[in-house]
């Protein structure tokens, strides 16, 4: 399709905006999942360390 009039240009720009919106949500989702996985991994590691029995040293 040739985009050669301002009206077609406006439609094209609108599609680009919607696509940017969808891709941005996708990128945000990836960042969120990544953050949760690493954060949860760290919390689990800290909890595991805290629950270890304390060795007597005396």
């Amino acid at each position: 399709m040739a985009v050669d009039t301002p009206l077609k240009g406006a439609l094209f720009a609108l599609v680009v905006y919607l696509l940017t919106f969808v891709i941005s949500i996708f990128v945000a989702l990836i960042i969120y999942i990544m953050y949760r996985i690493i954060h949860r991994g760290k919390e689990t590691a800290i909890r595991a360390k805290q629950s270890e029995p304390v060795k007597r040293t005396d």
Partner: protein
Amino acid sequence: MFNFWQIFEGIYTFFTGSLETALLRILLIGIGLLLIYLCHKQILDPLILLPMGMAMIAVNAGMLVAGVGGINSLFLEPLVSQPDKLMQILQIEFLQPIYTFMFSNGLIACLIFIGIGVITDVDYLVAKPLPSMMLAVAAELGTIIVLPIAMMWGFNIKQAAAIAMVGGADGPMVLYTSLMLAKDLFVPISVIAYIYLSLAYAGYPYLIKIMIPKKLRGIRMDPFAIPKVSRIEKLTFSVIALLVLSLLFPVAAPLFLSFFLGVAIKEMAITRFQDFIEGPLLYGCTFLLGLVLGALFSIDIIGNVAVIKLLVLGMLALLFSGIGGLLGGLLYYKISGGKVNPLVGIAGVSCVPTTAKVAQKEAFKVNKWVMLLPYAMGPNVAGVITTAIITGIYVTAIPLLK
């Protein structure tokens, strides 16, 4: 017959061409002087605009007679394409090597992006990605609205997309898009983009005062309420974002690599690289950028295009993006139940870190206890990503349209 004034070619060339050419040269010299004055008054950012203003004066005053009735300078020729002529010019015009080997291939944009990556804080973006990305999308309004307006003014879709990218407020992206889509408008668009990006620091506060009530500008946000993000999380973010965005938009992959490499260097605390990139590399490239842009602003290069139209369209693009960002900020304020300062929205206009600093400065004027910068950096960095997404779509999709 010998003319005495021919000895002083800069003056002589004022009388060899048309009256319009002479007047335009004087106007450009005047703009150069104005830029220097505004830098001195700290109204404009001197890092780019001081060398640019100086170069504008030199290039428009230092014109020579070239060929029959033509005038030229000894700075650079951006539109030369024949290899033998280019080789000749490379040996004569002193800024030509920088233009040919750093500008026209986008290298300088990538180097500046590495520098921006090294100085960028991504904590809020990693901790709160969705609001950051949504504010950034809202602040892309100018890149969308100006495209049909530019087409209405007689530009084709490639040229319209290149000028609309000014609304993304990201210098390297504007350079890249105009190089890919509208090489004939590369020079005026890039010059206009950098002038406006520098003006954003002076102009956006007025827009903020019009759109955001004073009471809302002073809303406090606790900087310690941002969840703690470790270095490993930020490093992982930079690697994954690089991988995903490069897969989605290979055309902008050099820019993604540059930016996220900078972030990774910062988060790995490689201080030797950091010191080099955020010092000599970033400032060196910024200096050369200003110098070359100033030299490009000469009568023989920009005298033949519809610069006035581009000036208006560039201003509209940044204006709409600012309005979009602030509307996004107001919406976020409503959704959060009044906890969020709507000024963070302006930071979605991704001119890193200028717009985030504008948000902080305007909030500080109302309330001395507001610390907005850590929050504003989230949409600010997200703005780089959304601008890259739109760049990728424009550069990929538009050539496919018949």
